[in-house]
C-alpha cells in the first residue's frame, strides 16, 4: 500500500515539477500538416519547408528560379535533353557526397511514384560527367520548375528502403533530422557541413497540430515561435497581441467552384454565367475568410503573367442571372425553385472539410444560389470524392481550393487541369484553343500573350467559377526576427531567422 502510494506520488511529482518556461533555445514551428512518413510523396513538404532536404532548383518569392543543388542548367537545341550541373562539395547528412548519380537515383525513384514527374513525359534520367541528364519524349520548357517541386527533392541513396519508399529524410539542407515521431513531430539541428550559409539558430522543431485554434493559442502562450496557418478569428485576435506579430501574404491558390460543363443543366455558358453572377464575392470573402480577396478572375495577382488586369472582373448581379436563366427556359416553381420540363434546378455541391472554410463557403453559396431559384444540396465528404466523381462523371458542382503553384510555374497545374480537363479543373468541357496554347507554353513557345489568352478563355467560358483568392497567415513570436511567408509554400525560411535577443 505504502509502496503504491509512493509510486503514484513520484509520478505526480515528475509530471508537475518542470514548469513551463519560454526560451528553450529551439525554434519551434507549428503547422497543420502531419508527419506521415519520411517519403517525399507523403510528407515531403515538411522536410523541404524545414530546410532539411533540398531540390536541384529553387524559386524566390516571385517564383523566379535560381540554382539549388544544381549550379546551372541548359537544354539541347532539340529541347529534348536537359543537363543540370550538380553542385560540387555538397554532403548529405549521412556524410556521403552528393553526386549526379545520387541525384539521378532520387529523381528516378520520384518519377516512378504518382506525381508531376510521372506526367512530364521523361524518357530517361541519368548521370554523366558530374551532370544530371534528363531526356524528354516531348519538349518541356518548365522542367526546371518541375525539379523545384517538393516531390523532386534529393535524398541520399541510403534514405530509401528496398521498395523505393524513403525511410529516413537524409537530405543536404541546413538542418538535419535528430528525431522523427510520426504523426506529430520532427526535431532538427543545424548541419555543420552544410554547403551554404549556416543557419543562426542551432535547434529547430516541427509539430503538427490539426486545429487552427490550438495553433493560435500556442503562439499566444509562447509555446511556439513560428505558427503557420491561422483561422480568421484567431488572426484578428492575435494581431492585437504585443507578444506575437502576425503576417499574411497572397498565395497562388484560389477558392473556386468546379462545374460539370457536360451536365444538362450546366452545359451552356449562360447557365454557368448565371451561377457566377449569383455569387456576392466581396461579401462572402469578408464574412468567411475575413479578408478582402474576392476573386475578379481565376488566377490571383501573385500568379505573374497569368493574372490579366485587363480582364473584365467577375460581377455580382442577381437580376441579370435570373434573366439569363429565364432565357434558358427555366421558370419559378411553387416553392421558388426553378423548373424546366418538370425538372427542378437542383444540384449537389461536393466539398471537403480538410480546409475548414470550405463547408462554410458552401453554406453561403447554398443561400446565394437559392436567391436565383437554384437549389443546392451540400455533400461535405472526403477530398478524394472530387476527383473520384470527376472520373465517374457524376460530379455536379465541386467547391475546391486549388493551388496553381504545385510547381513554381503554373503551367504545370494548367496543363493538368485545363488541357482539356483535369481531376481538379475543368470537367466535361473541351476547348482545343486552350489545349494548343498550353502545350505551346509547355514546349517553350508563346509567352504572356498565350497566358493572357488562356485566362481570357477561362473567364468567358467559366469551366470553373472563381470565388476568392487565398492568403497565407503566420504568427511569429517577438523573440525572433527575420520570419517571412514564402508564397510558393516551399520554405519556412528558418535559415534567415535569428533570435531577437
Amino acid at each position: 500500500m505504502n509502496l503504491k502510494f509512493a509510486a503514484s506520488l513520484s509520478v505526480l511529482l515528475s509530471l508537475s515539477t518542470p514548469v513551463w518556461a519560454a526560451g528553450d533555445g529551439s525554434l519551434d514551428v507549428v503547422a497543420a500538416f502531419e508527419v506521415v512518413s519520411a517519403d517525399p510523396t507523403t510528407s515531403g513538404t515538411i522536410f523541404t519547408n524545414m530546410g532539411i532536404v533540398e531540390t536541384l532548383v529553387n524559386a524566390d518569392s516571385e517564383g523566379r528560379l535560381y540554382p539549388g543543388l544544381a549550379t546551372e542548367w541548359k537544354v539541347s537545341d532539340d529541347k529534348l535533353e536537359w543537363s543540370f550541373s550538380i553542385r560540387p562539395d555538397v554532403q548529405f547528412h549521412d556524410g556521403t557526397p552528393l553526386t549526379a548519380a545520387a541525384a539521378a537515383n532520387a529523381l528516378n525513384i520520384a518519377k516512378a511514384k504518382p506525381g508531376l514527374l510521372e506526367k512530364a513525359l521523361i524518357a530517361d534520367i541519368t548521370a554523366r560527367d558530374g551532370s544530371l541528364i534528363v531526356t524528354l519524349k516531348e519538349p518541356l520548357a518548365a522542367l526546371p520548375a518541375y525539379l523545384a517541386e517538393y516531390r523532386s527533392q534529393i535524398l541520399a541513396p541510403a534514405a530509401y528502403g528496398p521498395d523505393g519508399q524513403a525511410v529516413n529524410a537524409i537530405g543536404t539542407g541546413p538542418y538535419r533530422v535528430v528525431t522523427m515521431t510520426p504523426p506529430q513531430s520532427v526535431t532538427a539541428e543545424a548541419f555543420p557541413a552544410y554547403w551554404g550559409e549556416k543557419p543562426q539558430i542551432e535547434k529547430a522543431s516541427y509539430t503538427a497540430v490539426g486545429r487552427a485554434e490550438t495553433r493560435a493559442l500556442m503562439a499566444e502562450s509562447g509555446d511556439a515561435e513560428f505558427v503557420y496557418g491561422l483561422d480568421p478569428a484567431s488572426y484578428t485576435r492575435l494581431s492585437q497581441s504585443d507578444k506575437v506579430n502576425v503576417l499574411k501574404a497572397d498565395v497562388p491558390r484560389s477558392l473556386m467552384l468546379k462545374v460539370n460543363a457536360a451536365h444538362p443543366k450546366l452545359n451552356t455558358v449562360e447557365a454557368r454565367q448565371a451561377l457566377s453572377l449569383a455569387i456576392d464575392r466581396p461579401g462572402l470573402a469578408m464574412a468567411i475568410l475575413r479578408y478582402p480577396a474576392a476573386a475578379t478572375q481565376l488566377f490571383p495577382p501573385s500568379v505573374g503573367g497569368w493574372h490579366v488586369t485587363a480582364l473584365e472582373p467577375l460581377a455580382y448581379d442577381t437580376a441579370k442571372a435570373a434573366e439569363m436563366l429565364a432565357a434558358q427556359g427555366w421558370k419559378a416553381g411553387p416553392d421558388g425553385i426553378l423548373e424546366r420540363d418538370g425538372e427542378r434546378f437542383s444540384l449537389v455541391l461536393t466539398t471537403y472539410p480538410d480546409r475548414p472554410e470550405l463547408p462554410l463557403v458552401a453554406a453561403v453559396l447554398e443561400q446565394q444560389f437559392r436567391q436565383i431559384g437554384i437549389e443546392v444540396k451540400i455533400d461535405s465528404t472526403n477530398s478524394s470524392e472530387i476527383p473520384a466523381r470527376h472520373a465517374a462523371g457524376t460530379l455536379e458542382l465541386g467547391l475546391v481550393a486549388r493551388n496553381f503553384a504545385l510547381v513554381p510555374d503554373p503551367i504545370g497545374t494548367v496543363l493538368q487541369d485545363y488541357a482539356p480537363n483535369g481531376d481538379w479543373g475543368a470537367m466535361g468541357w473541351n476547348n482545343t484553343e486552350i489545349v494548343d496554347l498550353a502545350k505551346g507554353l509547355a514546349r517553350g513557345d508563346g509567352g504572356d500573350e498565350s497566358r493572357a489568352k488562356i485566362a481570357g478563355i477561362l473567364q468567358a467560358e467559366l469551366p470553373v467559377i472563381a470565388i476568392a483568392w487565398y492568403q497565407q497567415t503566420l504568427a511569429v513570436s517577438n523573440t525572433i526576427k527575420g520570419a517571412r511567408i514564402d508564397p510558393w509554400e516551399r520554405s519556412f525560411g528558418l535559415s534567415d531567422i535569428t533570435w531577437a535577443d
Partner: protein
Amino acid sequence: MPLLSRLFQALMVALIVGIATFAMMRALPGDAAWRIAAGRYGYDNVNAAAADAVREELGLNGSALPALARWMGDLARLDFGVSLVSGSPVMEEIIHQLGASLQLAIAAVLLSIFIGPPIGILAGLRPGGITDRALLTVSTAFKATPQFLMALVLIVILAVELGWLPAAGYGEARHFLLPALALALGLAAVSARVARDATEQVARSSYWHFAEWKGLSRSQVLWRHGLRNVSVPLLTYLGLQFVTLVEGVVVVESIVGWPGIGHALVHAVFSRDVPMVQGTALVLGLGFVLVNTIIDLALRRIDPRGAA
C-alpha cells in the same frame, strides 16, 4: 477459473472485432483506393493516376473473403500488417499512439484519485457541512462541462494568461499536466461524489460506531475500518470510467495535439487504412477486457466481505 473465462472472453472479442471492423470497412461507401490516395498524398495531389497506382500496389480489386481469411491468419501469427498510408508496421504505430493515450489516461486517473476521493471522504464525514455543499455545486459544474470546453478553458487560463504550462504539444513531462487535468477534473467530480456517498454510508454503520466507541480517533477509524469499504464502489466506478475516459481522451487529444490512439483511429477510418483500423479496434477491445479483469481481481482482494 475466472481467468480462463476472461481469456475466452478476450478471444471472442478479438474474433468479433476482427470480423466486424472488416465488414464495416468494406461496407463504407466510396472507393478505398481513392481514400487511401487522399490520405497519402493530400488533397492537392489526389487524382485518378494516384488512385490507380494505389489500387495496383495494394491489390484492392481482390474479393472480400480471401482478404478476411488472410487477415485472420496474419492475426493468429500476431502479424498486424502494414499501414496503407504511412507504410510502417501497424504494431509499431499502435504501440506509439496507444502508449501516448495510455500515458495521458493514467496521468488523468492518478490526478483524479488525488483530487476526488479525499475531498469526497471529507464531505462524507460531515454530510450537509460546508465542504459537502461546496462539493455538490463544484462537482455538478465540472461534470456538466464538456471535456473540450474544460481543455480550452484550462489552456486559456494556465497557458495563455498565466504562462505556467504549454498550451499543447507532446513529448515532455510538462506537456502532460494540462490535458490530464482537463480529463481529471471531470473524473474527480464523479469519484468525489461516489466517495462521499460511500463514506456517509460507512460512517452510519454499526462497526464504525463500535470503533468510535472503543476509543479510536476519527482518522484512526477511517484508516482502519473506513477506507477499504469506501474503495470498493470507487474501484468499481474506476473500471466503468475507463470507457468514458477513452471518449474524453479522443476529444482532448485533438485539442492539445496529442498523437494518441483516438487521433490515429479517426484518421485511419477517414483514409480507409484497414489494417490500422482493425489493429486499433482490436487493441482497444482487448484493452477493455484487460482493465475489467484487473479491476475484478483487485476488488476480490480489497473487498472485506470477499471470502476468496
